[in-house]
């Protein structure tokens, strides 16, 4: 890419808005996923009896089953949330930057 184009983009305030918004959002979402996952795996490591508690009195289904499936579904939902915001906010900013500099 030519240097002047890089500078034009770099000095565009919308570029900074895009970078800071997207990076912040991406790292927050990553941390959320990590926290969910490590909460799950560390509960398994430290408190097995809790995961094996019956879901309701007399049930065979344990608390661990909806939690495990919940982690799987949360991964899908988090990617969905990211896509929504990326389509609505980041892509729009990106388009505007391209229109202004190209």
């Amino acid at each position, binding site marked *: *890419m030519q240097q002047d184009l890089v500078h034009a983009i770099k000095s565009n305030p919308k570029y900074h808005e895009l970078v800071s918004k997207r990076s912040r959002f991406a790292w927050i979402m990553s941390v959320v*996923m990590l926290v969910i996952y490590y909460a799950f795996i560390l509960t398994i*490591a430290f408190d097995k009896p809790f995961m094996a508690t019956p879901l309701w009195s007399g049930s065979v289904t344990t608390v661990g089953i909806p939690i*495990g499936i919940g982690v799987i579904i949360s991964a899908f939902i988090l*990617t969905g949330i990211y*896509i929504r915001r990326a389509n609505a906010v980041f892509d729009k900013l990106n388009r505007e930057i391209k229109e202004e500099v190209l």
Partner: protein
Amino acid sequence: MSFWKRAFPTLLLMLVAGSALAAGGDLGAVKKAEVNIPAIVMFLVFVAATLGITYWAAQRTKTAKDFYAAGGGITGFQNGLAIAGDYMSAASFLGISGLVFLNGYDGVIFSVGWLVGWPIIMFLIAEQLRNLGKYTYADIVAYRFERVPMRTLAATAALIVVILYLIGQMVGAGKLIQVLFGLDYTYAVIIVGILIILYVTFGGMLATTWVQIIKACLLLAGATIIAFGALYLASDGSMSPERMFAKAVEARKGDLSIMGPGKLVSDPIEAISLGLALMFGTAGLPHILMRFFTVSNAIEARKSVFYATGWIGYFYILTFLMGFGAIVLLTGHPEFADPSAVGGIKGGQNMAAVNLSAAVGGNLLLGFISAVAFATILAVVSGLTLAGASAISHDLYANVFAHGNVDEQQEVRVSKMATVVLGIIAILLGIAFEKQNIAYLVALTFSVAASANFPILLMSIYYGKMTTRGALIGGWLGLISATVLVIVGPTVWKEILQLGDPLFGYKYPAFISMTIAFLGIWIGSIMDNSERAKKEHEAFIAQDVRCQTGIGAEGAASH
């Protein structure tokens, strides 16, 4: 090219005839199943269809971009299915359902770990990969750094991961086919090897992707039928999971431990380390990273991850249902029993899903699932072989030996030769490792991917002060420490080499080797005051602009 085109139909005929012959002959040996006619018919239909696709793809595969990246014309939805297909390997289809069948809840822990890597890939690297890369992930780590050493490192790490992964798949393929089709192990491995060479050399990424997509659809359909069929039968027609779990506990003579976590994760450090290897190892697998270059832009790359996460998550929930369904429907049924095998069922625990298909849908469903399981291996091995061949041709040959002065046709020719060589290596390794314990390969593959590939990939995107020296120090240290720690760890040192207590107490060394890699990159970079380092800091600005906006990206839409 014309040679390939002329040779293709002949090879196709030879192969179909050869596999039919091999299936008919040599059925006397022990431990092989009776010939399952529906399975063989459906398998041959699949092979014929995929070879048809390969022929179609061969006529559309002309340039290097076609060969490595399917011309960049795969949509996000299709790519999501293909990625999910790479993930739904025979190891996860048969392995996880078998693990649930054997240990109940513990089987879920692996699947959750593999899945949660996906959102992280999406948030931190998917779009950036598409914006910076061309054909292989080495394109990104060599973007602003010195080409020769960085490509060498990236290609070495990629090849190690590909070959380790290949061994597991080939051995799995051989054993699976032996059990399912009553075919000799060696023949089975050779047939797989020949088929993948055909798919990849003739059809490149386009054929590899479509084989993967078709297989993903077949596998999702098959797994859905078995899982819900099993739930229906195991819950006496009520479709209530609670009823199925209750009957599973009953089948295990009141053993409630299958409903909660067991022995798999006991030590918190092992838990953290396993999690790191599964999550970030995924983000360092070359055959998965390569899929991000087959879509036209970052938006499609993002969509692929969304669809892939959905399909993979759904698939893992199915394997969970299958495992519990198998406990109910296989335990205590003499037609599936084999007291000498692991788990007490025919073919051992890994055949739980296959036996279950017979319990749910009789011989026809068994045949379908057997064919799909074989197709799964073919598709995954093709993707791996293509990734390995690209590392050889695009990174080592074109960029290291020829210093970038090579024409496209020559590079594609080299990658086709590399494919043939890798296919032969895969066959030989498959035969050599037939009777070996390969359990450690999973730990090793994911630890190397998480410790060598992932750190330099992530840091080259986000760390502007990284230099070639830092990347090389961190990358090599990560690669070496992960390998050494797996060798002196419990699986290899104690169980395989039987040298007594392991020198390193954890099966998954990722928590140490990843830390070493990141520290190596950081310290190596801040200590680097060379002229080259200054240029690399400056080059980060341009890289970051392209990475963030996609302006200047390969195959980006023109405005």
